C-alpha cells in the first residue's frame, strides 16, 4: 500500500462495493482485489471495513448472498446486487458526483470571484 493512499470519505465505500457488484456476483475477496487493482492502490480500503459494509448492506436488503465455488474451486460466499441495491447505487453515484463537483467548484475558484 503506497504511502499516499487516501482515507475513504465516509459512505463512499458502499458506493464502491455496489459499483463493483453491478457487473455480476462476486465474493468479498474479489471485490477487495477489484477495488485495489482498479484504483491502483490509491484508495486505502481496510478489508475488515469492507466486510462490515457487505454484511450491513446485506442486512438492508441491498445485497443478497449465496455460498458457491470460487475460481479455484473453494467454498466462497458470493454477493449479488438486488433491485434495491441497484437503485441505491444510482442514487449514491449521483450524490457522490454532486458532492465532488461542488468540492471542485470551490477548490478551482479564483480569488477575484470571492471578493465582494
Amino acid at each position, binding site marked *: 500500500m503506497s504511502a499516499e493512499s487516501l482515507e475513504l470519505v465516509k459512505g463512499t465505500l458502499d458506493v464502491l462495493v455496489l459499483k463493483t457488484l453491478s457487473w455480476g456476483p462476486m465474493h*468479498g*475477496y474479489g471485490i477487495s482485489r477489484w477495488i485495489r487493482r482498479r484504483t491502483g492502490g490509491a484508495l486505502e480500503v481496510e*478489508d475488515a471495513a469492507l466486510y462490515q459494509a457487505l454484511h450491513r448492506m446485506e442486512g438492508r436488503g441491498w445485497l443478497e448472498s449465496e455460498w458457491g465455488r*470460487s475460481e479455484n474451486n473453494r467454498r466462497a460466499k458470493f454477493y449479488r446486487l438486488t433491485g434495491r441495491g441497484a437503485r441505491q447505487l444510482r442514487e449514491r453515484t449521483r450524490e457522490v458526483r454532486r458532492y465532488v463537483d461542488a468540492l471542485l467548484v470551490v477548490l478551482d475558484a479564483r480569488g477575484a470571484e470571492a471578493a465582494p
Partner: protein
Amino acid sequence: MTPADWRRTFRAPRPADRQAREDVDAEIAFHLDMRTEELIAAGVEPAEARRRAEREFGDVRRARADLVPPARRRERRTRVATALAELWGDIRYAIRGFRADPAFAAVAILTLGLAIGAATTMFSVVNAVLLRPLPVRSPERLAMLWTGAPGVDARGRPDYRTADAWRRRSASFEDMAVLDPVSMTRTGDEGAERIGVARISPDFFPLLGVRPARGRLFTEEEAEARQPVALLGHDVWRDRFGGAEDAIGATIRLDGRASRIIGVLPAEFHIPGLEADVWEPHTLFPDWEATGNEGVWFVIGRLGPGVTVERAEAEMNAIESALDERRPPSERGRRVSVVPLGRYVVGPGSRLALWMLAGAVTCVLLIAAANVVSLSLARGVGRTREFAVRATLGAGRGRIVRQLLAESVTLALLSAVLGSLLALGGIRLTRAFGPADLARLDQASLDPVVLGWTLAVSLITGTLIGLAPAWTTVRRTVRLSGPEGARGSSDGIATRRIRRGVVVAEFALAIVLLACAGLLVRSWLSLARVDPGFATERVLSMNISTTAFPDDDGRVAFYAVMLDRVEALPGVAHAGLIGELLTDADVELGLTVERSDAEAPERVSLRVDEVSDDLFATLGVPLHGGRFFSAEDGPGSPPVAIVNRTLADRLWPGRDPVGSRFKPGPRDAPAPWITVVGVVGDMHRRGLEVEPGPQLFVPLAQQPSGNEKLFVRTSVEDPLELAAAVRAAVRGVDARVPVYFVTTIEAELQSGLAQRRFQTSLLIGFSILAVVVAAIGIYGLVHCSVSARTREFAIRMAVGARSADVFRITMREGLGPSVAGLALGLVGALWAGRAVSGLLFGVTSADPWTFASVSLLLTAVGAAACYVPARRSMAVDPMTTLRHE
C-alpha cells in the same frame, strides 16, 4: 421406513447461531488464504505474505466480533422466512390439490367437520358444566357436609346445634356456614308471589368469597339481634326492583314481615343447588329462640389449605362421635360425609354421563379421522406419478413428508372451521333442548377456551392423519424413482393393508359406541315399563303457598274451602294436596311401634307428608287395606296416619298394620301414639329409577303446612286447559295465595328423565354417525380394491372362475376386517359397558341380547356397504379388460 430413514428425513438443521459463526469464519479465512496466495504468486515469501494479508485485513478478531451478531440475526430471519414461504407454498399447493379433487376434499372435510363439530359441542358442555370454576373464591376448597345414620341416609342435614358444634370444633375447616332454603310469599304492588328465600349464617358470603355488588352484607350483631334485613339476588333486583339504586334501604314483605334491603349480590353469583332470590339471617327462622334452634341445615365449609377431603371427613367423624355423648341413645352413631362442592353441584351420575359422551365423541372423531386417512391413502395411490416427478425434480423426503403433513393439517383446519360453525348450532340446540337440571348447561358457549381446544385437536388430528399417507408415499416414491417407476398398478399393497387396519379400527370403535347406546336404549325401555304407582295422565299439578297466613287454623279452613271450589269446577274429577310429591329429600326418624319387643326405636329414612282426604283418589293410588283420610280426621281428633306398602312391611313385617299405633322417638317420649288407618301402594317419588322408600302420610288438617302441591284430576285430554280456571278458583278464595310452577304430573315425571333422554339420544346420534362413517370407510376400501384388482378378476374368470366366486372374494375382502374389528371391539364394549354401568337401569352391563343385536346390526351395515362395490366386480368382462392391458 427405518429409524435411520426418519432421521435422514427429518434431519435436525444446524443451529442458526453456529451456522452464522461458521459462515463468518469461513468467509474471512477464504479471504486471507486467497490474498496470501496472490502475494506468494507475486513473489513474496510465504510467511511474510500471510502477515501482510492479515495486516491489510485489519483487526481480524474485532471484525469477527462485529460481523457475527448481525449475521446471526440475518440467518434466523432467513430461516423463518424460508419456512413460512415453504409452508404457505405447501398450503396453497394443498388447496389447489383439493380444488382439483373436489370429491375427496368435500367428503373428507364434511366427515371430519361433522366429527369436530360434535366434539366441539360436547367439549363446550363439559367445559361449562365440569371444568369452568364456580364463581366463588377457590371453589376447590369448598365442601358440603352431610350427616346420616350409616346405611340410612348419606345426605341428611344436621340441626343447628350440631352444625354449630362442628364449626367450633373442626380444625380441618377454616370456617363453616349454614343455609336453609325455603319458599316464602312476597307481597308487593303486583299481588302475592312465591319467592325463594335462603336463611344463612353471617359468614356464608365471606366464606364463599363473594362480595355484594351493591350495599353490604349483614353483620354478626344483626343476625344475633334477629334484625329483619335482606340481600337481593341480582335477578330479583333487576326484575322486581327495576335494577334501581334506591332498592337499597327499601323494604320487601316476606310472609307478611317487612325486611330492609341492605345489599344486592353480583350478577354472576349463581351456584346451582344453593340458589335463592333473597338471603336473610339464619336467626329469622320462625320461633328461633323458642324451638331451641331447630330445623335442619345445609352446611358448607371451606377446607384449610392443603387439607384433603378424606382427612376432613375423618376429623368430622371423630367430632361427631364425641358429640354423641350428649345425645340420647336413639340419636347416636351418625356418620358425616364431606362432599366437594363441585360434586354436589354436578352429581356422579351426570359426571359419568358427560365423560361417557365425551368418550363417545372422541370415538366418532377417531373414526372420522381414520376414514380421512383411508381416503388420503387411496388418493395417494393415484398421485404416485406426481410425487415421483417431484422426487426426480429434487424434492427430498423431508420436503415431500412436510408437504403431505401440510395438506392433512390444512384439511383438518378447514374441517375445524366447518366444525366450529356446526358447533355454534349444536351448542344452541343443546342449550335449548338439553336437560334443565344439568347445572350450568346454559352457560355452554364457543368461548376462547373451547376454540383453543378445537384448534389444538384439529392440529393433532391433522398431523396424525398425514402420517400414514406420508409413510406410504415416501416408501413408494423412493421405490418409484428407480427404473420401474413408470408402473403404478401393482402398487398399493401396503396402502391396502393400512386401509384394512383402518376399517378394523373403525368397526372396533363403532361397536363400542353401538353397544353402549344399545345398553342405554334397553335401560330406557326398562324404565318405560316401570309403574310409577300413581296416575300420570290428565293430572294438573301446581304449587300453592299459604306461608303468609298467620296461623294453621286459617290454613286448614282455606284448604278445605279451596279444594271444594276446585272440585266443583267443570271438568275436574278430584283435587288433592300433598306437601311434596316427587322428591328425594327424606327425613330420618326413630319410630317406635306400640306392640313390639324392640326397646330402641327403629331408625327409618322416610318421607313424611301431609295429604288431603282426596289426594290418593286424585293420584289413583291403590288402597291395600284400611281407609283413606276423611273429614273426621280433623285437628281435634286422635292423630292418625297412612303408611305405604314398604313402610308397612318394614315396621309390621308379616302383619296388618291397620289399627296399630306408633310414635316418633322412644317409647317414653311425650308425643302421642299415632294410629295407622290405611295402607297404600308404593309411589315412585324419587324418580322411576329409584325403588320407592318408606312413606308416611298424615292428615293435612292435623299437620298443615305453608307449602303444598295441588293436584287436579281432570276429564280433559290436556289438563293445562283447566289451569286458568283452577288458578282463578284458588285466588278467588284468598288472593294472598301465590300459585306457581303450573304443569302436569306427566311433564314433572318427564323432566326427571331429561338427563337420561339427553344422554341416550346423544349417544344414539353419535353411534349412528360412527356407523355411517365406518360404512363409508368399508365401502371405499372395497370399491378401491375392486378397481385395483379388475385385471386379477378378469384373469380368474378367464381361467374358469364364475362371477359368484369373484363376488365372494370381494365380500370377504370387506367383511373380513369389519368382522375382525367387531370382535376386537366387543372386548372394548364389555369394558365400556362396565364403565357406564352407573347409568344403566334394568339391564346388566354385559347384556347378551344387546351385544348380539348390535353385532348383527353392524355386520348387516358392513355387508350392505360391501355389497354395492362387490356387485360391480361381478360385472368384470374378462375379454374387454384383458384386451385393454
